[in-house]
């Protein structure tokens, strides 16, 4: 048989791999106990993979999808709860880890994460205009003027968060400011005065 010629039609994509059903459907016991990963997670240096715990097939109308529960390890940190994959199961982005590589991957997970010493701030200074506005606003309302022009900073809840958020008056290791900040690629700002 001649090698099949693959001809791509339509827009290109960043995904690389198969859909979850393509992987799981061709495995013994629907792949329970096997390890899969997504190509979008390969951007991180740490190991990211998912161990299949349970699989449920879907009705005929949802033939591209499959309901899978996984134990997720994100950026080298195992998450405490089991995650369900259903909405994203159709994405052709999954890859099965061969059995001979599983041990190596599991061994790469550390008990203490690299970024656990990073502390995110829980407050941020107000923008310049807002400070002036608030001074006037408080005057108008007859309220006591603010001593400190800082506001609390909230973060979206995510089990994938690596860094710790500062508690109370803890000193954060990163400081967020209102403004442009320090550019990662200074080459893009050539000839632009930054302050």
């Amino acid at each position, binding site marked *: 048989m001649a090698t099949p010629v693959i001809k791509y039609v*339509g*827009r*290109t994509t960043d995904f690389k791999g198969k859909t979850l059903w393509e992987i799981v459907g061709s495995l013994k016991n629907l792949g329970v106990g096997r390890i899969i990963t997504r190509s979008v997670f390969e951007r991180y240096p740490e190991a990211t993979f998912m161990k299949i715990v349970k699989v449920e097939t879907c009705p005929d109308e949802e033939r591209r999808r499959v309901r899978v529960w996984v134990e997720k390890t994100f950026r080298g940190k195992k998450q405490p709860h089991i995650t369900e994959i259903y909405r994203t199961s159709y994405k052709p982005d999954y890859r099965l880890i061969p059995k001979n590589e599983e041990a190596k991957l599991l061994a790469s997970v550390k008990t203490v994460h690299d970024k656990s010493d990073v502390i995110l701030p829980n407050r*941020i200074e*107000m*923008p310049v205009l*807002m400070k002036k506005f608030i001074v006037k606003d408080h005057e108008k309302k007859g309220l006591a003027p603010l001593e400190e022009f800082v*506001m*609390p*900073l*909230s*973060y979206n809840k995510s089990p994938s968060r690596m860094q710790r958020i500062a508690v109370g008056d803890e000193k954060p290791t990163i400081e*967020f400011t*209102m403004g*442009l*900040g320090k*550019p*990662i*690629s200074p*080459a*893009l700002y050539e000839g632009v005065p930054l302050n």
Partner: protein
Amino acid sequence: MFSQNAILKRTIPIFVQTASAHRKPRWLPVAKSKIYRIPKRPVISEDEKKELLRLHNNYRTQMRAIKRFYFDELVKEMASKQSATSEMSQRLEAEEWLRCVELNDKWNAQVALDREERRKQEVAAMEEYTLARMEAKDKELKARIEKASEKIREEKELSKSFITPETLDAAIDHAIANPTDYNFAIDLKGNKYMGRDTPTVPPKEEKVAAAASN
């Protein structure tokens, strides 16, 4: 297309140019010539991508902080307003209630006064109406009695000429003495032709002639 001169000299009627984007209406499908066109993906360098990601993350963090600050402030304001009302609400509500009752009583008194006045007027009007009606009825009754008595008087007047058993013989005698013959005709001049003297049947020859003509 047209020369500038032609436009300036108005050899061509002036045309109105409308500013419209050359776009297909949204409800039309993809043009046939564009069906298989695949837009090129923008190529963003690694440096730029990282920088954009950092800037966007920064922006979102800042905006989240501002939004949360103002939301908290709003909540605080509402709470303070509510607590203030709960403290003073008892006293204020009682005052308001008293004020309302007083006002209501005042209104009620005014309405009662108005009602009395109105009732009086109504009773007076009704009395007037009833009296008028009674008067009219009396008048009508009186008129009827008058009419009836008039009639009786007339009848009594007439009864004088009635034929009674006592006057019967006299009446018969009178009738026989003065016979009345209504069997007559009157011509245009008022001449009376008594019926008993004039022959009712036309002459014989005339009758024959009439039969012949038929």
